Structures are given as structure tokens and as C-alpha cells.
């Protein structure tokens, strides 16, 4: 018998593109980025090693600190908001209602739209001089105020709202599939025992749906770290720097402010944070129980 490598040589050839991408486009670029982050590179990468000074500068930068805080606020409201709204939508849709597919279609369509489109639509709807605020004033409520988009301390909540509008339908779709998989016997048994519906949901159904909640949370969290276009379209980081986010910070310092050292340090911090959160989950999900070998 030929050695395993030779036996599967064609499989190795077929995997060559994937290996090339992994080695050069993933690992190589990551190492390169980390290397730049330890230099004093400005417009062009240079190779004088400056230790952790870019990282010190990064965490001394008000813009970065605000970006991280905004990401935390946005992420918390966005994830929790999407999970709650998505769960409620799924539960209410699961009550054998009329026109279920119409509602389902309405709740999910924003997910097909890009963050750019989402951002622009909400920017227009909540425009303080022409949008909802002005409309309500025209209706006769002269003092009505909803100008969060132009307020530095509130605009990040509008971004979270727009994000929820876009992604709640995703959570609904995932959880609805989960609810449809719940055994009908369970509901009958609960009814026999006279347990109120809400308690069945809280104590039995939600635990059953845990894997779906985890999946949804992972998907939403990935979107949180990547959030860039939504902010660009909705506020472009403003007013001032009040809605900056890390992804935007990096792109700006890479391509407009020409500070490679600082930008790569920031992106390295982003990556390490994500890896720390993900590694345990990926391990549990994929590698603890290996599939039986063919």
C-alpha cells in the first residue's frame, strides 16, 4: 500500500488553492501586520523596532478609547436587542397565526439589505430637520424632539437601532426553525400539567433553544466587530468622534491618516480580542468530538 500522502496526492493538489490562501492571505498577512505594529511606520513600513510603544500610544489615544467604548455600547444593545426582539417575533409567529409567511417576509427583508442602505435609510428617516421629528411637529406637537442623530451622546444608540432593524429577522429565522423542532408532545404534557405557557417558554423552550441562541449570538458578535459601513453611512463617526468604532479607526489610520504603526497595533488588538472569545467556542463546537474517520 502506498503511503497516505501519495495515495491522496490528488486531494493535496485540490487543496493547494486553499493552502495558498491560508498561508499567504491569512497567516502571512497577520504576521506581517503584527510585525508592522512593532515598528514606527508612518506612510511606508519601516523596520526599526520600537517595542510596544504603538500599543501604549493606542491606549493613550482618546479616539481609540471612545471607539472601544462605542463598540461595547453598540454590541451590547445590538446583540441583546436582536436576541429579545428576534425571540419575541419567533414566538409570536409560532402561535399558528394567519398570514404567517407575510409577517416572516417583512421581518427578514432588511437582512437582505446592505449596511450602507440601512444606514442611509435611517439617516434620512431620523434626519432632525426633515425626518420624524419635523413630521411630528407638523402634526401639531411643536415641542417634540428626537434629534439623537445629531447628539454626540445619543447617536450611537441610533446606530444600534438601525442594526437591530437590519438583523433581528436573522435571529427570528434561526429561532423559528428551532421552535418548529420542539416536540409537540412537550406542549401537550405541559398543558396536562397545567403549566402556564410563558413558564414553558422560560423554563423548557429557551433551554432547548440554547444552541440556536449561541449560533445567533456568534453571528451577531461577528457583525459587531466588523461594523464599519453602518457607521460610515449613518453618521460617518460623528458628531465629532462620538460614534467612532475600532474597524473605522483602523481603516482611517491605514489609508487616510497614514499611520501604519498605530493602525496595525489597533487591528492586532482587535484580532487578539476576537480570538480570545472565539477559541473556546470553536474548540467545543468542532474539535472536542471528532467525526468518525472514513
Amino acid at each position: 500500500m502506498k503511503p497516505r500522502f501519495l495515495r491522496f496526492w490528488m486531494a493535496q493538489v485540490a487543496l493547494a488553492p486553499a493552502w495558498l490562501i491560508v498561508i499567504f492571505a491569512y497567516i502571512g498577512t497577520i504576521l506581517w501586520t503584527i510585525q508592522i505594529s512593532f515598528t514606527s511606520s508612518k506612510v511606508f513600513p519601516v523596520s526599526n523596532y520600537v517595542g510596544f510603544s504603538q500599543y501604549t500610544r493606542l491606549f493613550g489615544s482618546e479616539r481609540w478609547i471612545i471607539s472601544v467604548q462605542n463598540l461595547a455600547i453598540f454590541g451590547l444593545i445590538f446583540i441583546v436587542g436582536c436576541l429579545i426582539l428576534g425571540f419575541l417575533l419567533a414566538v409570536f409567529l409560532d402561535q399558528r397565526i394567519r398570514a404567517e409567511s407575510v409577517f416572516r417576509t417583512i421581518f427578514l427583508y432588511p437582512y437582505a439589505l446592505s449596511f450602507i442602505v440601512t444606514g442611509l435609510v435611517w439617516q434620512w428617516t431620523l434626519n432632525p430637520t426633515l425626518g420624524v421629528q419635523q413630521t411630528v411637529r407638523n402634526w401639531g406637537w411643536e415641542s417634540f424632539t428626537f434629534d439623537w442623530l445629531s447628539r454626540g451622546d445619543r447617536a450611537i444608540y441610533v446606530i444600534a437601532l438601525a442594526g437591530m432593524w437590519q438583523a433581528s429577522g436573522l435571529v427570528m429565522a434561526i429561532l423559528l426553525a428551532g421552535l418548529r423542532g420542539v416536540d409537540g408532545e412537550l406542549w401537550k404534557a405541559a398543558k396536562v400539567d397545567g403549566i402556564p405557557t410563558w413558564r414553558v417558554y422560560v423554563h423548557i423552550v429557551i433551554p432547548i433553544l440554547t444552541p440556536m441562541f449561541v449560533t445567533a449570538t456568534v453571528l451577531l458578535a461577528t457583525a459587531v466587530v466588523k461594523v464599519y459601513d453602518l457607521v460610515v453611512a449613518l453618521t460617518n463617526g460623528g458628531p465629532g468622534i462620538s460614534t467612532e468604532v475600532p474597524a473605522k479607526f483602523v481603516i482611517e489610520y491605514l489609508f487616510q491618516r497614514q499611520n501604519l504603526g498605530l493602525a496595525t497595533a489597533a487591528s492586532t488588538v482587535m484580532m487578539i480580542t476576537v480570538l480570545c472569545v472565539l477559541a473556546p467556542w470553536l474548540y467545543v463546537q468542532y474539535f472536542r468530538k471528532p467525526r468518525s474517520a472514513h
Partner: protein
Amino acid sequence: MASLTANAHVEPSGPRPKRIGPGRYGVYAFLIISALFFLIPLYVMIVTSLKPMDEIRMGNLFALPGSPSFDAWIKAWSQACTGLNCEGIHVGMLNSIKILIPSVILSIAVGSVTGYALSFWRPKGANILFAILLLGAFIPYQVFLYPLVRILSMVSLYNSIPGVVFVHTIFGLPLMTLLFRNFYAGIPIDLFKAARVDGGGFWAIFLRLMLPLSTPIIVVAAILQITGIWNDFLFGLIFAGRENFPMTVQLNNVVNSSFGEKEYNVNMAATILTALVPLFVYFVSGRWFVRGIASGAVKG
């Protein structure tokens, strides 16, 4: 769904649950209010695009247009200014199509072969490759960007459509591989073994056995990639170059350009035009779209 309806005919032995009543109205009230929350932006977008500017200045967002016209749509399509040139959003649409078609085909081709090799053949190192690909799906793009710009410049692909296509293929690989690997994991191994006994090689089994079986997952993958690539902003902005900006980038330039009075009707028309392709895919594919996002929901 079918099983639930079937169960409805079985009388539970306990006290009959109250089905019709105030609770029922509550259910519908919640669903209708939620539907309004999801529909209002779409309504505002459409209504605004059909109004002339002086009607918009009166500031009634929800009012129906007095005399609806498609002037703003025509202007958005052929005259709106994106930065310096004023050729309308249709330039971006053409660019988006030129980026989309090769990106979808290439990423599915590489992803399906990789998924197939990983699930049936599992050559040496397959697990490592799979682990890195999985991690790659979650790592923020910011870490890859600058070196990729440099690499693509070295091979003269930076600021070109092949360059963006390449980037979409690179970053589509984890999801595509996962999708196909999971799909092939569900195909009975005996089928594969039988093909091996019959003397089928790597490519023969892939092309003549697996690919014909893969139609459903190819549809799902195509839906995911079409919406994802069409909606992309970041890669188009960084890798395409000014001449080749996709529609999303041009749309943002139209709306957020700082000079002159903002023509909200034109902006909204341009926004709708940009959203048309993913919306079309969503409405046409229906359940497949849901299946796509559920499969995209990284599960093993």
C-alpha cells in the same frame, strides 16, 4: 409545520387551553406593530423617491407624494454625482455586476473542491487547514488589509476588478468550505466507497457523482455569495479603485457628498436601486434564503 397541525387534532387530556381571547389580539397587535417598525423605512424610502424637492422641504416624511414622478429615479440612474463625475449610479451597478459574477463562480468553485477534499479524502493536514479556515471566518478583516494591498500591488492587481474578485474569493473561502463540507458530511460514505471500488478517482467522483448531488447547496451558496458580495462596501472601497467602485461605494458617495443642496429624493431613489438586486434575490429565493442564512450560521 405539518406535524404541529396534525397534533392540533389530538385532544389533550388536561383542561382545554384558552386559544381565542384577548391574548389573540395581543399576538396580532405585537406582530402588526413590529411589521410597521420593519416597513416604515422602506415606505419612507419609496415615498421620498417619488416626491419633488419642494414637497420634501415641507417636512412630512410619511405623506404620500402629491404628484408622484420618477424624475428622481432617472436622475439617480444617469446623472447623480459620485464625487467628481456625474454619470449616475448605473456606472456602479455595472461595476458591481462585473465584480459579482466572477467572484461568485470562483468562490463556489474553490469552496466546493476544498469542502469535498476535506470531507471525503481528509489528506494529511486537512484538520489544520480546516481549523485555520474556521478561525479565518471570524478574524476582523482589518488585520489582513494592508499586507493584502501590498501583495496585490506587487502582482499589479490592486485597484482592479480581478483584485476585488480575488479578495472576495479569499474571504468567501471559509464560509463556502464550511457549507460544502457540512453538506458532503451528510452524504452516505458508502456511496463514496462504492465509487472508489468502481475505480473512480478524485476528480471523476467529484465531477460525476458529487457535483450533480450538490445542486441544493450550490443554490444556497450562490444566494449567500450574491447578497454578501453585492452588499460589500469595505473591499470595494479599498481594492477596486476609483474607476471600479461597486454600487454601494458610489451610493455612499452620492448621498454623503458634501457640496450643494442634498437631493433627498434622488438619494432615496439611488438607495432603492442599490437594494434591488439583494431584494430580488430574497423575494425570488424565499425559503432558500432562510436556509442559506441558517447554513451560514456556522454549525458543524
